[in-house]
């Protein structure tokens, strides 16, 4: 924890993902034409309205993104390129502007075709690419995506381009510029693949993604061939898939950590042998990258502090945390300026406290290291070659102990510092205890960038994935994913449609977008035994009483005459089967009602549109109506209820059956319990003298406490000689003594 608060803030700014997205949409007769597959709307309308929707989503998830839209092959503009929205952070104006265009189209004031007429002459591709490139270059986004939406109607042109070396080279150069500026090209091909033959497609891919030609793969150096692994391929998008395809853009990759997965426990000899390429060894390691793909969105995260300045402008207020030495009065001293002393972490143990320096804290943390000790005889001679040691990955250390003058070190330890993961073994996917997850999972991919510690990780990872899928296995691993975290047990779970089945090879490619997950493993942390909390204190007793009433000793040995429970379970089984969700749970179907309501209401505020209908609606509705109207999750519940009652079928009958069965069993139980229970015993009268018989009856039924203090005292006074104690003490004491006496007398102890 070093560096002042302001430094931290500057750092934090640096880490915010600024994503720049540019759409370049090719205009043609086809994109303007109504398309039956998307409800008679045109493809262009679908595209633009989806981009408007994307705005809304990005505002929630990534407000620092910028979106720009270009339309090319557009008549009446310079180079036939129309810049609809320049690349700027998402803002209210842009959203309004786009919505206005769409509104005008819908109301017929100005249709999209009128507004963006198709030009007779196509825009030269290099020109388009250069324009887009310039747009990116002028802005500072740290993650750039270029979505090129084309129907490739100008096939002939493109074809010509491919066969004209000069043009081809121009495109190549632009693509290389894209790569150098970290601009990722994502072509979206409207239409279907049938028009294309594979060879042509391969050629375009080569051109657009700057792939090394497959005819001579050995040309490129080994490390560079790995780069193309991350290039997307040309994909075709049907009109009705445009929406899904584009909305998936918001799903930005949030990079979390880099980690090495050891397929075997590291062996010292192996580690050292590996540093010299001639030696084969036993160190199988995959370098991986972890991405956060699930994180809970909350709107209050973006609630800031504001201040209105003298010119009535809102200013965003920031806060800096200042730490002050308690004893020094008044003068704030931040960590940095405090020259003499330093801030330390103090631990309090009873009356004693002690503090640890950062270094010592690291020593405590060093327990997270994977430490393997080796006898020196195991180590080959190269151990002492410092050149080898330098080549070890940064987080792997070799330490020698017990130096001997003649023989060198006596023992060596191999210390793998976090982060690292070690494979413990493989278990069936079905055996994975899902309910023990304790943190959002991370998606793991092979690390093929320069940050990787080990080579060929993609191939190893790919084959590990394929082997696990084939055998339906998940991997149990132990380790630490980040430097400062606690070690734990994880499961690496391969993405597959279900735990029991492989992804069908044919189906895999064609599966709907909402069902597919990228290929790879999810790293899922399991709860450690420290993490379990105790069960609610009353539970076991409550359940015990229930079983006692049923005459059962445990859930497994139900008395044979009891037919109710199995029947009830059977009814529940039937009922549950009725309501199995057809698609399972798909997050896409469940938008967060709170965030969406917040954003919708805020958008209204922002646009300052006095929608009279809305205002009226707001006045007329009760909170319940508002809730029903805006909460999608609630609506689904209502639909369940309505569907049950609408067809008046088996489900309703089952529900009624279960309720009536429960009622009848509960009534029977209540009756039989009442008749056997001491509760039905007559309560002692709380007036008048108590006879021995009364007392005995009350004792048998555990009702002595119903007597008043006066009654008890009288009774004891009368029988003092027999009882052996007098009427002194609290009521509790008297009852205790009486019970004890009666227990003894009646041999019940």
């Amino acid at each position, binding site marked *: 924890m070093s560096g002042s608060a302001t430094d931290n803030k500057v750092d934090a700014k640096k880490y915010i*993902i600024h994503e720049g997205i540019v759409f370049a949409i090719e205009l043609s007769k086809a994109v303007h034409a109504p398309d039956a597959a998307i409800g008679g709307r045109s493809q262009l309308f679908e595209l633009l309205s989806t981009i408007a929707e994307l705005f809304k989503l990005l505002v929630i998830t990534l407000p620092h993104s910028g979106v720009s839209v270009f339309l090319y092959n557009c008549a009446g503009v310079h180079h036939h390129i129309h810049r609809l929205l320049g690349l700027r952070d998402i803002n209210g104006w842009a959203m309004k502007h786009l919505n206005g265009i769409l509104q005008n189209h819908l109301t017929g004031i100005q249709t999209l075709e009128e507004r963006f007429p198709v030009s007779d002459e196509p825009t030269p591709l290099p020109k388009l690419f250069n324009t887009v490139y310039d747009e990116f270059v002028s802005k500072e986004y740290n993650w750039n995506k270029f979505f090129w939406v084309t129907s490739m109607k100008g096939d002939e042109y493109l074809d010509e381009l491919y066969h004209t070396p000069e043009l081809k080279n121009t495109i190549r150069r632009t693509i290389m510029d894209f790569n150098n500026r970290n601009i990722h090209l994502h072509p979206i091909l409207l239409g279907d693949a049938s028009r294309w033959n*594979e060879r042509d497609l391969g050629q375009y891919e080569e051109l657009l993604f700057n792939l090394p030609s497959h005819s001579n793969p050995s040309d490129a150096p080994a490390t560079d061939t790995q780069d193309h692994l991350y290039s997307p391929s040309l994909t075709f998008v049907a009109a009705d898939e445009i929406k899904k395809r584009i909305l998936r853009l918001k*799903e930005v990759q949030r990079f979390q950590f880099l980690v090495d997965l050891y*397929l*075997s426990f590291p062996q010292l000899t192996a580690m050292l042998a590996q540093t010299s390429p001639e030696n084969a*060894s*036993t160190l199988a*390691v995959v370098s991986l990258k972890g991405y956060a*793909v699930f994180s809970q969105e909350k709107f209050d995260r973006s*609630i800031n*502090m*504001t*201040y209105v300045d003298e010119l009535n402008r809102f200013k965003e207020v920031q806060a*800096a945390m200042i730490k002050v*030495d*308690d004893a020094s009065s008044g003068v704030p001293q931040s960590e940095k300026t405090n020259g003499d002393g330093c801030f330390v972490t103090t631990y309090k*143990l*009873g*009356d*004693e406290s002690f503090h640890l320096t950062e270094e*010592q804290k690291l020593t405590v943390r060093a327990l997270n290291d*994977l*430490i393997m000790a080796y006898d020196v005889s195991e180590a080959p001679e190269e151990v002492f070659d410092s050149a080898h040691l330098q*080549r070890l990955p940064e987080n792997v250390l070799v330490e020698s102990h017990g130096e001997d003058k003649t023989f060198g070190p006596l023992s060596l330890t191999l210390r793998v510092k976090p982060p690292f993961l070690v494979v*413990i073994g493989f278990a*069936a996917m079905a*055996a994975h205890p899902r*309910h023990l997850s304790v943190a959002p*999972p991370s998606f793991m991919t*092979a690390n093929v960038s320069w940050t990787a510690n080990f080579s*060929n990780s993609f191939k*190893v990872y790919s084959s590990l994935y394929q082997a*696990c899928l*084939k055998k339906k296995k998940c991997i149990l691993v132990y380790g630490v*994913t980040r430097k*400062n975290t606690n070690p734990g047990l994880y499961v690496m779970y391969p993405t597959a449609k279900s735990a029991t089945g492989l992804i069908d*090879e044919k189906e895999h*490619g064609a599966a709907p977008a909402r069902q597919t997950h990228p290929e790879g493993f999810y790293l899922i942390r399991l*709860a*450690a035994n420290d993490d379990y*909390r105790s069960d*609610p204190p009353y539970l076991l007793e409550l359940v*015990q009483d*229930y079983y006692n009433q049923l005459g059962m000793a445990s859930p497994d040995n139900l008395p044979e005459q009891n037919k109710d429970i199995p029947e009830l379970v059977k009814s529940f089984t039937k009922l549950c*089967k009725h309501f*199995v969700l057809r698609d399972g*749970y798909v*997050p*896409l179907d469940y*938008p967060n009602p*709170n965030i969406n*309501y*917040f954003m919708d*209401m805020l958008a209204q505020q922002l646009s300052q549109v006095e929608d009279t209908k809305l205002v009226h609606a707001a006045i007329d509705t009760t*909170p319940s109506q508002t809730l029903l109207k805006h*909460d999608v999750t609630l609506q689904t*519940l209502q639909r369940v*209820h309505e569907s049950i009652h609408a067809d008046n079928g088996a489900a309703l009958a089952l*529900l009624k059956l279960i309720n009536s069965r429960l009622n009848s069993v509960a009534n029977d139980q209540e009756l039989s319990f009442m008749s056997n229970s001491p509760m039905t015993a007559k309560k002692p009268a709380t007036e008048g003298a108590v006879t021995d018989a009364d007392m005995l009856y009350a004792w048998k039924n555990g009702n002595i406490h119903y007597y008043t203090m006066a009654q008890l005292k009288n009774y004891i006074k009368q029988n003092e000689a027999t009882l052996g104690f007098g009427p002194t003490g609290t009521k509790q004491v008297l009852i*205790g003594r009486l019970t004890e006496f009666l227990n003894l007398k009646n041999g019940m102890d």
Partner: protein
Amino acid sequence: MAEKEFTCFIVDLSPAMGSVHNARATTDLEHGLQYVKDLLAGKLIRGKKTDIVSVVGVHTKATRNSLSTDEHNVNMALLQSFTHMTYDAYRTLMAGEICRVNADPIRTDAYEANLFKALVYAMQLFIEATPASARDKPDKNLRVKRTIVLTTNLRTELEYDTELLTGVSQLMGQFNVQLIVNCVGLETGAVKAEDHTQQYNQRRWYDLIRDWNHTNKFEKVYDNAGLIADTDTLLRTRLEHPPGRYYKSTKLYTGDLRFAGNVKQLLGSSVGDTADSGSLRFPVEMYPAIRVEKLLSGSLTYLNRGEVRGVKSFREYYYEIPYRADDGDEYKKVPVEEVAIEKGFKYTTTDLIQLSQVLAESLKLPTQQALDIRGFVPQDELQPWYFSANEANYIVPASTSQFRDLMAFNAFVQALIELELYVVARYVQKKLADVSMLVLVPVVFREPPTVGAARHKRELSDDGFPVTAHALLAHRLPFKEDEKIGNFPALTNYGKGLTEHRYTDKFPTKEMQDLMDQYVDSMDMGAETRTEEAVMEPNYNKKSLPLPVKGRGNTVGMARVLREVKPVAYHIAAQTAVFKDIVSNAAASGGPIQEYVESEEAFANLPSSQNLKQLLSIPREKLANNEVLVRAMVEVFDIQIVDRTKSSARTGEGEYIGIVVPDIGEDE
């Protein structure tokens, strides 16, 4: 009221304890005290004011106890009267001056106090520590935990005074006392007791404890009134089955788990409609189930010339205006008074909206407390990565449940287990709280039986488990906005509809794949199927001491696998062990902890790191078999350490402009 816990340590200091056995380097006393030391250090670290300890020595040179007369209870001393653990007390006790073997022979007359009399004395101490008003109230007594930890090697002859023992047993029952006999060199399995006295004593203690377990009426609090275990077993237990930290269960929700009700009518209430026979309701309560434990955390202080002082922190508010300064700063900070600040919402980077109280209220969806079932999903079809919440909660029948409710809930959960279904539910904790979607996993509670647990009122089922309870375990499911899957490179070329030749060099060859398949097989852990039901074994507050857990032979599937690697799963316990070592080493050095921490030898030799290494070595033996396979893999896949010197040169040329990776630091 915080729950009080009294622990009395009785230490046998008779001459036999000074002897060395089983090829150990230390005497029986030193060995046995390791467990005591560990418990005391644990209590010191936990630092609970309500956790109170005392130490009694038997066969001490001096006689110092309130029961002693000239003719009774001689040579028994109260070494430490009841106090919460402080470092000073710990250090004094551990210094070796106090807990020291008295070499004087044991007096053969009746004057000498023995271990049984020490038990009586411990009871006396418990009674003295209990307020007079509470002594006669069994209910109040039950709420206090009292434990006696007796350390002995059983090599000293003991006279069994049956009458005395009956009395002790009764008292222990009344005051809810658990006895743990920490035996150095106890006969375990194949290891036979060496000495005749030891064998005899051992049998008698077993008998006694068995009797006590039967007569003890307070099994609600302890499953076993007494426990006799070998020191080595107990020492191993502290790492393998450390006691959990006890948290009072906080109720998170009370209401009905509803199904098929008329939502329109039920809005505003968390209870179902009892009159609607077309819907279901289960009265439930919700409690925390899984929370990630944090390591002992320190507080930030300011150290100046050896003096440690507290630290205050406060916020300074400012806004930035663009400004060109000589030093290259592009922003100027304008300070703002805290009172002038109002809430605002940054809609986009350029649109800032001030949120007045009224506006903020109107932006909140008017939700109401509720828990409703949306539907069911087959367990295999709910992707495991959707279990993405940090916290899981138990949903259990409400404490006010009637017979009918329990029957309905149990039958419902049983049906779910039978069908292998999860429940998808909509949940709002309280009025105006956020809506969340939950997955409810049917689980079975099982109480882990400790060694020596006797068959009580609560009958054990056939496989040796006590009665189990059904419950649901609730995890939050992601919403549409929470899922952010990006585009990742495909790992296979399945279903591409293209011939393979384009990327042949990218994917593993058949030879590689065959090797990997073999490797996966060789590392198979044998967990083929799911355990029949998800079993939760929650931490029990009863186990504030590390006590051995009875082994379970017939568990199958992943549960067994997890149990095998369980030791590494206790990360907090393992790290607490470091602090225990620090305390113990510091006490041994005789000075304050700070002095020790600053000394050179600190951290040099912490036994706990050794322990962790041992734990990790479990699966390593298995891996040795794979060496040939792994060697082949390395060769075929050509796995090499990437030459860092080359790659950094590459970046130096600015070829790679990557996204900046934040060092997120401490995992929250």
